[in-house]
């Protein structure tokens, strides 16, 4: 038995550790797709196209970060797309009512966190499946949008407009939007929390084996409720970034965006059963989704629905890959 363990240990040490493998695959996929695009289309493989990927998807990055926390504990949050929409609506409506833009941002962020807190508390303390609770949250948030207004509300607040139109130069001809900087900071904080705090490690432990985490005396309740607070706050922040991007609040914003977020997380190598995955993987997942869109827009003749089909296929590949890795892990 020891000999077997020895062999496993050596094999695991020499190759890429299994837990990094999905992320490496995703990274390779991203590089391949990007390089493929560069070979096929002129002006594709430019720095700005790469940066545009981030500019156009900064809200999705933030969303995927929150979703990563939730999925790491083995949960799911279906409400994120609706919370994005609700955030755009609340922001637009409050600005229309003449609130100060800074206060509006604060209200939106705190509102998202409280929304997540309520869902997390119901999930943990009342033991109702995350799927159902966040589904109700999805309906509620989307419905509240319509309560605020049935029509799209344009935003002409100077601060919001300024943020939306600012380009942060990076030297050369390159630039990013302020949203990209915000998303970068969020990713950095998420990496810090997940890897350098006890809360973050408890998130992984809960996803790996909730029973063990409890027996080890870890703060399971804090982690399980906390991830939904984080996801709610991230959704609200993504909503603000989306507001900058669209400069309007609208009930039909971000329909189905929860699926994009979940897809990005899974393609980024996070196990839907929890316990394994990385925020940076999710960022790569978002980039892969964005690259698919970019290639389709460069191609021109390929219709937009191909992106859904390709995303579905990628999901399939990664789900089966995860299954194979899990089986090998058991054997």
């Amino acid at each position, binding site marked *: 038995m020891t000999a077997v363990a020895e062999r496993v240990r050596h094999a695991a040490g020499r190759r890429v550790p299994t837990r990094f493998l999905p992320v490496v695959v995703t990274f390779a996929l991203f590089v391949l797709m990007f390089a493929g695009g560069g070979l096929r289309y002129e002006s594709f493989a430019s720095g700005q196209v790469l940066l545009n990927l981030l500019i156009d998807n900064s809200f999705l990055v933030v969303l995927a970060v929150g979703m990563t926390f939730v999925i790491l504990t083995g949960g799911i949050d279906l409400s994120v797309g609706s919370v994005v929409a609700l955030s755009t609506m609340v922001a637009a409506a409050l600005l229309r009512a003449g609130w100060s833009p800074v206060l509006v941002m604060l209200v939106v962020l705190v509102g998202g966190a409280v929304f997540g807190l309520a869902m997390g508390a119901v999930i943990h303390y009342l033991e109702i499946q995350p799927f159902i609770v966040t589904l*109700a949250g999805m309906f509620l948030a989307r419905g509240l949008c319509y309560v605020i207004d049935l029509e799209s509300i344009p935003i002409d607040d100077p601060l919001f407009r300024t943020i939306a139109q600012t380009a942060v130069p990076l030297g050369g001809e390159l630039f990013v939007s302020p949203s990209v900087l915000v998303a970068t900071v969020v990713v950095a904080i998420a990496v810090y929390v997940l890897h350098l705090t006890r809360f973050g490690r408890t998130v992984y432990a809960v996803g790996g084996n909730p029973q063990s985490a409890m027996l080890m005396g870890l703060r*399971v309740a804090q982690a399980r409720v906390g991830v939904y607070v984080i996801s709610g706050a991230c959704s609200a922040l993504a909503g603000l970034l989306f507001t900058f991007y669209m400069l309007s609040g609208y009930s039909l914003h971000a329909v189905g965006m929860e699926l994009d977020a979940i897809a990005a997380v899974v393609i980024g190598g996070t196990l839907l059963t929890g316990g394994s995955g990385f925020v940076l993987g999710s960022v790569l997942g978002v980039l892969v989704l964005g690259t698919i869109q970019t290639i389709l827009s460069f191609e021109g003749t390929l219709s937009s629905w191909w992106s859904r089909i390709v995303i579905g296929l990628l999901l399939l590949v990664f789900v089966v890959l995860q299954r194979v890795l899990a089986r090998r892990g058991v054997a």
Partner: protein
Amino acid sequence: MRDLLRRPVWPLVALLLLNLAVMPSFFAVRLQDGRLYGSLIDILHNGAPLALAALGMTLVIATRGIDLSVGTVVAISGAVACTWIASSPDPASPGTALTGIGLALALAAALGAWNGFLVARLGIQPIIATLVLMTAGRGLAQLVTDGQIITVNNGFFAGISGSALLAVPLTVVVAAAVYALVALVTRRTALGTLVEAVGINPEASRLAGVRSQSIVWTVYVFAALCAAVAGLMISSNVNAADANNAGLWLELDAILAVVIGGTSLAGGRYSIAGTLLGALTIQTLTTTIYSVGIPPEVSLVFKALVVILVFLAQAPKVRALMRRRRRRRDDAPPPAATAVPAETAGSGR
């Protein structure tokens, strides 16, 4: 009947009474051009696709599964049937419509078998396995329709939702027939019992020799077929296939209907009557919101509130808390020394 009474009937009754209060003519039914009309008939007619999708979902959930791809199968079946009809040389003939319907059902069966393959054969968690088709399916539907809304002008196809049998809308007849068929099949064969056995205790079922794989395949194929029929009704109702919006979020409503009907998401015992009740509750809620004069878009808030209420009332933890409170009122106060932390009580299974 006893079974039906145990299900939460109160939301539906409350909604119906509310309607009656707001609109006294709510229960009126009238006959016009050989077809019944009225609010109740509307609820049944508009609720038929949801009721069907929820029926398939019930059996899937009974085996401890879930099918997230129901909505996309709705879109695909409508897309296939309409595209076939619209592109055929004889787009008005009943034969063309029949072939289109057949194609749609066959494709749906194949998609159901695909879900079954991922779940039963590869052993992938149902929620993940069906997420694949949920994501890709709408793209497939758009691929079929080339991204257009395909309108058809075929009397036979329009008849799926427009015609009536003995004054009852065909949609209602079809849904009722499928419910009756499933009730009959699960009673006359051992399928119902074996589905429940697999859902309640998969390992015990395996050791008793139950072929759970083939049962799981069967229910996913059936769920897809139900969704396809629902999709045909929806697209026949508007004489068009909208790959983008047809059946959007229908799987979520279907899951809700199943759970409101008293079937646990954890699998096992299911209730077909309960699911029907759940589907009607959801549809009545939607109709009520119209009739009370609330903008239809706001209906989601009410839906969410109803869901939250029903689930809180059903949650074992909440029930236990209520029981404890009731007991505490009766008994002397218990010693405070043995407080159980929430984590312990939560994951102690």
